[in-house]
């Protein structure tokens, strides 16, 4: 990219969404330059050659303030989020679309950084960006940049939903709450000095390693994004005759996240992650699965944190370190910091 120096001053103008020369220059001179020549089609659609019978197809829109944060940015988030949604289904993420809504006045320097970050994230996850679109909205009608990515994943072997049974173990792939607390600290100008960063990461590699070694033992995989671990576990147990019990002492949470949550009266078990999976696995192979996970850079702090039992059917509960229990219900809405 040669335009970098100019990009500091250059801004998105209404003309960048007009379909005219400004837009074409931006697409061919910048977007295609970074994301690859096939990322935006001259034709109206990308044509894909798929051999497999079954595919997974998903879409997600990304709006985050601030757009750059320690550990990532909206571009990395938009690629990894969709990659992970495919991966937890057991599919191999293959193709992504990239639809950009840009606000008039958004600077090209940031835009370029985000595109580079999408390119790098796609490369890391092994997916291709094969089609895209850009629109420009007037100043004040957007928040710098919104990204929508849709994704197609291919099933290499037939997946089946396996039944969760009492005695199954609950595994998480690392420390919880890092992404949500990072964003919340920045967004609310909490002015903590902090080494905290988002856990935004592609999880398809980690998941395929697990499925390759233990195809029969994994009952359920889900990435614990919005609503955090507690919300995922509530989805699993709702209306069922079993409960999910987790052990406070065994749940990996960084001291920083604990501290900030304490201060604000937030529960890290409900805070969003962008690079963590929850796995329900058979008791026989749970230890083996955790060993595999710990060898992957995105699963270093993986742990068994609890199990499926019949204590409070349909509910999720936590056993605190002193041995007392309390419920972890589905939250009604976003947590609000308390008064004192």
């Amino acid at each position, binding site marked *: 990219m040669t335009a970098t120096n100019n990009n500091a001053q250059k801004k998105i103008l209404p003309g960048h969404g007009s379909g005219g020369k400004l837009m074409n220059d931006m697409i061919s001179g910048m977007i295609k330059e970074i994301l690859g020549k096939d990322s935006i089609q001259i034709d109206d659609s990308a044509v894909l050659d798929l051999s497999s019978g079954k595919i997974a197809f998903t879409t997600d829109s990304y709006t985050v303030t601030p757009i750059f944060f320690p550990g990532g940015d909206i571009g990395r988030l938009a690629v990894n989020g969709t990659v992970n949604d495919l991966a937890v289904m057991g599919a191999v993420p293959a193709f992504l679309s990239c639809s950009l809504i840009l606000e008039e006045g958004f600077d090209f320097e940031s835009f370029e950084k985000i595109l580079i970050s999408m390119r790098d994230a796609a490369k890391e996850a092994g997916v291709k960006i094969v089609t895209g679109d850009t629109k420009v909205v007037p100043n004040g009608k957007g928040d710098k940049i919104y990204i929508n990515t849709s994704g197609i994943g291919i099933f290499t072997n037939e997946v089946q939903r396996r039944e969760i049974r009492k005695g199954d173990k609950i595994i998480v792939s690392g420390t919880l709450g890092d992404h949500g607390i990072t964003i919340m600290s920045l967004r609310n100008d909490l002015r903590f000095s902090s080494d905290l960063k988002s856990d935004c990461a592609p999880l398809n590699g980690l998941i395929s390693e697990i499925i390759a070694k233990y195809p029969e033992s994994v009952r359920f995989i889900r990435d614990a994004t919005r609503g955090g671990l507690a919300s995922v576990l509530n989805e699993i147990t709702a209306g069922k005759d079993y409960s999910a019990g987790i052990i406070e002492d065994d749940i990996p949470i960084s001291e920083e996240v604990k501290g900030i949550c304490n201060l604000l009266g937030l529960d890290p078990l409900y805070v969003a992650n962008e690079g963590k999976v929850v796995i329900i696995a058979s008791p026989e192979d749970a230890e083996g699965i955790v060993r595999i996970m710990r060898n992957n850079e995105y699963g270093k702090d993986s742990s068994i944190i609890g199990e499926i039992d019949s204590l409070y059917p349909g*509910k999720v509960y936590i056993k605190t370190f002193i041995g*007392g229990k309390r419920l972890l219900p589905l939250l009604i809405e976003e947590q*609000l*910091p308390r*008064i*004192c």
Partner: protein
Amino acid sequence: MNRELVKKLAEVLKNRKLPEEVRIMEVCGTHTAEFFRTGVKDLFPENLILIDGPGCPVCVTPNSYLDLVIEIAKKYNAVLATFGDMIKVPSSYSSLAKEKAEGMDIRIVYSPLDALRMAEENPDREIIFLSVGFETTAPAEAIIIMEAEKKGLTNFSILSCNKLTPPAVDALLSADEVRIDGFIIPGHVSTITGREPWNFIADKYGKPGVISGFESHDLITGVLALLDLLEKKEAVITNEYKIAVRENGNPHALKIIDTVFERCTTEWRGLGEIPGSGLRIRDEYSPFDAMKKFPATPPPVKEHAGCRCGDLLRGVITPPECPLFDKVCSPENAIGPCMVSSEGPCSAYYKYWRK
């Protein structure tokens, strides 16, 4: 504290034998939530009953305050800066959340300093900070008023609904409506007040109390110490939170409160008007007193039919005994503030123990 030691203490509490029912009150809303959150309440021996007290600032704020807030914001087109907890509390006819959805400029802040900064950054707007809290938050609110004066800000004021907790406990005990054998006394409030303001519980009413912190070990040692005092029939107030609470509290903070605020009679939800339990802004600082700066007459107060937050805050009922609990009243459709605030007893029961 050493975790193994705490686990042993937990065993002691779990296995403690009580020959008859013991009824203790935790005054503070943070204690209410922490007893559940830590799992300590789950370890209580069968005969030990925990009664929730009037110590959640949002819960004890009467409808009339929010009615006034909304009336002022409408009449004067002011920006309201508030802690998040207040947003969903129903007023007589509305709530800040509803008003916000209809366009009222309401902003959530994490510290009163954020509100002050907002006033500096928006010199053409009136910023009113909703100052709702107890002894713990009052010093910070006094400081921002002093700061606002120093900076010569003319567009910043606070609407004080600050309250003092010991007079509320006194009112509760003098009403003698429910049996309370002893008290777990708020640790955070006591860091400001010290032990002395609580001595009346022992001296006037012959009941013991223990100042307690908020971690698992604080809660367990607090309860065990209180049970010991009850067993020995010793009516004294002891401090089990020495790491944070000094005998005389924090004289500097008390002086700051006293510089800006003076005591007044104020209304508590459930307890009515209690003399000397409120903090209003002194005349010297009246330019920062939204009550004086923005005269307004809200419509007559209307209580919500069937809401028993008042009874709850006096310890007369527990949340599951309210006919609305988990039927009509839930966090998504809260009828009373005790279901809204994270320190409210209903919210704690709903969240942590709706088996």
